[in-house]
């Protein structure tokens, strides 16, 4: 206990360490999370502007070009500056602790890949100051639309967009190299592959996907930049170029990107659900392998985004089948979570509420995903709000819920203090209700034929749109108790024990917050990762009062 108090006072005097350059993976992890949360708020603000415009059928709040910029920047920021880097930050904090290492494999590279992100993000935001505004071609930036900026301006919104995404991409590739090397080389004695927590497995799968697929996007962006700024003709249909090639390259990365975002969320569920159900994770080995399975299958599904891009029949059929195959390993995952909760002794604290909410919402988003994989249905709802509803059920209702679960779950470990439970529950219910109010109405709207990315619509759609907009504002409100809770608890919260949840996992065996080198001595691992309720491996914590 004395050691613990020493540690806390040290960390209090070093609150400012998160603003300084550091090669400590824990500091970098927290830096990632703080930075990405700022961009989450910016992206959320843009989303609320979009929803405010859509309360009325007429386009009357913002002018149409600005509306195009709003949804473009909202999507870009939420994907490339919130979910993906937040997951990188969380994995940065947790992976070395979970595998019993003192740091990442390449600490300096780790710091560099983080510090590339804030300038890239600010560069992207700065494009709002340009005379013609930021990029307007949607987050996928399809040519020829993305190449239609007024000529004569070398520095335009699309140019800034490509440059900043190239920087973010390089940062992600360097991060992925670091993660894969860390997981392969830095494991503690006895930490075999099948003793790694599922979070580490899913982080490994996600980072392998980054390595295989992200460079294709980098290549596509380089070619797009040449087309935009240097007069080449790769994707210009008027000069024999082929915009469909860009779509192939883009979706070759951007469909697996969904799993790069979702796999860490699945890993978070696999950590939180067993801890609060007091049950070992059901089917650990299957869940671990299913992570790799999802990653592998997702490499071969990209063309299901292009069913209406004049794709030949055999491509449609092949990719319909492969897309449906993804449902097998994800089904294994879902089954594992449900069976873990089954007959468990549930403790409904905030992380558990978020994890259960997120897992349930994932089932909904997964079902609509399988619906969309079928060619006839996809062609019917293509480019409607059904698509928007489907992927927001994944990226917000599943992944962002999982991220909040992770923040509450590891908050005591990261800060050494407990959060306020009541505020956390309030945050959960506001988020859960707000998210469903916002994104459920998009499904009936899409089935009725309301197109996405258009700022006006015919009046018969207004009812559902009002509900969705009110839900979006509720989501905006829901971040307030969260921010108050995190800031207040970080400064004035009660001190947390080393293992407040009585969870298994190596990160809970060290002090809260962990010392600079994570462990006083490197642990020797002699047990499987999820052993709740097993007397042979019961969690004993001498420090816990």
């Amino acid at each position: 206990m004395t050691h613990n108090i020493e540690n806390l006072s040290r960390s209090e005097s070093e609150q400012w360490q998160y603003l300084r350059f550091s090669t400590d993976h824990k500091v970098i992890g927290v830096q990632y999370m703080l930075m990405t949360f700022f961009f989450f708020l910016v992206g959320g603000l843009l989303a609320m502007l979009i929803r405010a415009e859509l309360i009325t059928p007429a386009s009357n709040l913002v002018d149409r070009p600005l509306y195009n910029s709003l949804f473009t920047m909202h999507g870009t920021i939420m994907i490339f500056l919130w979910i993906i880097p937040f997951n990188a930050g969380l994995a940065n904090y947790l992976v070395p602790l979970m595998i019993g290492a003192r740091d990442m494999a390449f600490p300096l590279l780790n710091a560099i890949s983080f510090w590339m992100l804030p300038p890239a993000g600010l560069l992207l935001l700065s494009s709002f100051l340009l005379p013609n505004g930021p990029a307007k071609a949607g987050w996928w930036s399809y040519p020829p639309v993305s190449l239609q900026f007024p000529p004569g301006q070398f520095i335009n919104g699309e140019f800034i967009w490509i440059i900043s995404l190239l920087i973010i991409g390089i940062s992600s590739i360097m991060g992925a190299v670091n993660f894969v090397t860390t997981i392969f080389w830095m494991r503690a004695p006895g930490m075999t592959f099948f003793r790694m927590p599922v979070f580490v497995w899913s982080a490994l799968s996600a980072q392998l996907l980054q390595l295989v697929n992200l460079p294709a996007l980098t290549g596509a962006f380089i070619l797009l930049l040449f087309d935009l700024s240097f007069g080449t003709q790769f994707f210009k249909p008027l000069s024999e170029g082929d915009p469909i090639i860009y779509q192939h390259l883009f979706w070759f990365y951007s469909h697996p990107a969904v799993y790069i975002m979702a796999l860490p969320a699945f890993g978070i569920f696999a950590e939180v659900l067993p801890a609060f159900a007091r049950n070992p994770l059901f089917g650990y080995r299957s869940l671990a392998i299913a992570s790799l399975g999802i990653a592998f299958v997702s490499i071969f599904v990209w063309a299901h985004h292009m069913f209406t891009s004049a794709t030949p029949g055999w491509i449609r059929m092949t990719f319909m089948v492969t897309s449906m195959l993804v449902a097998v390993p994800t089904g294994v995952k879902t089954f594992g979570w449900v069976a873990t909760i089954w007959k468990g002794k549930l403790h409904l604290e905030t992380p558990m509420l978020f994890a259960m909410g997120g897992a349930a919402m994932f089932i909904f988003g997964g079902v609509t995903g399988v619906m969309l994989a079928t060619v006839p249905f996809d062609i019917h709802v293509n480019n409607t709000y059904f698509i928007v509803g489907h992927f927001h059920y994944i990226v917000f209702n599943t992944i962002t819920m999982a991220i909040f679960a992770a923040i509450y779950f590891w908050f005591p470990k990261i800060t050494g203090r407990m959060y306020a439970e009541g505020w956390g529950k309030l945050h959960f219910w506001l988020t859960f209700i707000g998210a469903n109010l916002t994104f459920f109405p998009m499904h009936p709207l899409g089935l009725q034929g309301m197109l996405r990315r258009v700022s006006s619509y015919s009046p018969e759609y207004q009812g559902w749109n009002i509900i969705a907009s009110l839900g979006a504002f509720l989501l905006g409100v829901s971040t307030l108790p969260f921010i108050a809770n995190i800031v207040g608890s970080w400064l004035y919260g009660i001190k947390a024990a080393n293992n407040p949840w009585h969870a298994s996992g190596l990160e809970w065996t060290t002090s809260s917050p962990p010392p600079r080198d994570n462990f006083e001595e490197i642990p020797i691992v002699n047990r499987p990762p999820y052993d709740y309720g097993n007397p042979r491996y019961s969690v004993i914590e001498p420090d816990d009062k």
Partner: protein
Amino acid sequence: MQRRDIIHIDESPIRFERLHRRLPKKLKRFLPSGGGIAHDHHGKAIFGFTVFLLSESIIFLSFIFTYVALRLTTKNWLPPGVSAPELSTFVVISTLVLLSSSFVIQPAENALNRRNLNKFRLLWLITICMGSYFVISQLIEWRNLKFGLTTGLVGSTFYVLTGFHGLHVFTGVILQIVMLMRSFIRGNYEDGHFGVSATTLFWHFVDVVWVFIFSLLYLWRP
């Protein structure tokens, strides 16, 4: 209660360690088992760098995919009055110089492994010259070509492919110069030379990529 048996899942016969013991020695060094924290910093760094190169190769693959797809679907690959890049002796010689430099840089690294610093410097310098020759001859080739970057798809693809590869060769030469200068710091390479090994790997990578780009651009006649 009946659930406790699934806890012992760890004792299953497919243990990574058992598979690992059967791996060839060289691969075993490259992929350590979960037996302990790797103190082999060189091996760890080479592993990371190899992973990075594999990832980097996907960028080249995406360019090559674009080139092949455009070429197969475009009816008039050559705009009127433009001829395809010629397979001249000049290009063949610079290609041969680049490819044979791989067989110079590897003995250089091996010499450093055996602590033969002077042999390393000599062979390393020869590699630098060969790489520089390739970059310069590439620039001359660019000057002599009749088409520019914006001359149809043939120009776009040719300059982007050779340019991106040339940038890699140039980076490789810069890295080699840095490594050569480092060899003059007393005792610098005594406890490890990850930089030299990584540069060697990078150089082999650049060579292999050139084989593909060269075949696609010069040997595939319109």
